[in-house]
């Protein structure tokens, strides 16, 4: 699975997971995890590393383990 270029060491597959969830919009995801759409955009682009709580919430929305959404790059 190709990952986007990231500004942090944490990479994510949120864009891909949203696509597999019927093109879920960033706003829909933001509403479900109680974040703003701008923050979802920043996380997807690697400009912001979410808190542990937010990361677990995002993984729960997609129904996958945390490590399938976020990976730490050595």
């Amino acid at each position, binding site marked *: 699975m190709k990952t986007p*270029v*990231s*500004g*942090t*060491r944490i990479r994510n597959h949120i864009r891909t997971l949203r696509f597999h969830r019927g093109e879920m919009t960033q706003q829909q995801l933001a509403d479900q995890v*109680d*974040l*703003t759409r*701008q*923050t979802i*955009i*920043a996380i997807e*682009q*690697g*400009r*912001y*590393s*979410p*808190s542990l709580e*937010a990361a677990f919430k995002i993984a729960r929305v997609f129904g996958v383990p945390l490590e399938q959404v976020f990976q730490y790059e050595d």
Partner: protein
Amino acid sequence: MLDLPPYVLAATITWFVVCALGAAVIARRWLVQGRRTVQPHGYPGALLNGLLLLAIAPAVSLVQYIGSAHRAFWGGAVDLLIAGLLLIGYHFVLKRRLIGRVARSAMSLREKTIASQIVAILVVYGFYGARLWGQPLTRPDAVGTLVGITVWMIVVSIVFHVTIAAYARSYGKLDRIDERDRLVALLGSRNAYRTLAAGVWCIVVLAIANVPHGLLFYAAMGIFALAELVRLGSELLYYRLGA
């Protein structure tokens, strides 16, 4: 031999040490970490240092001017030079992709609001600064300036907010904040505190040097405006580049 009071030399040397430490941190990132320098707070380092130097350069010039028998401003000029080098360095690092790609996108509503506040401060404080610069300050002038700045800041801010709201599709969502907004606000306040603390020390030095009260008033107002600019500018940078 420079005919300078000891505190001016001490302030200048301290400033050079701070700049050198900042430069050493940036150099370490380049040399040791190289292309892996992608930590969240790493890449705006040179930019933030450059901007902070730019922000405080006038205060350094002021101290230099007051303390120097030659009425020179070279202290601030040196700061501006170092700030320029830091900003050029940041541009170089960005261009060489040593820091990871930074995505650019249209400004969000919150970013536009912050930008409008920056413009409002520059316009209002700039107007009063240009009008009163070089003139002796009387008590009615001081009161008038305080009231005027407060009123005009409110008026200009309302005008900007109404303009932004008129063109925005989702202005109501500006009220909603999350963990990223809180983090950006905290980082911005931290940078503003550092500027304010440095400014307070400059004012203390000026007070010890027995400068006129009017000048202290201008210095205090200027430092306050600078701290606000640093806070808002930092927030804008963190929103745009990452926090």
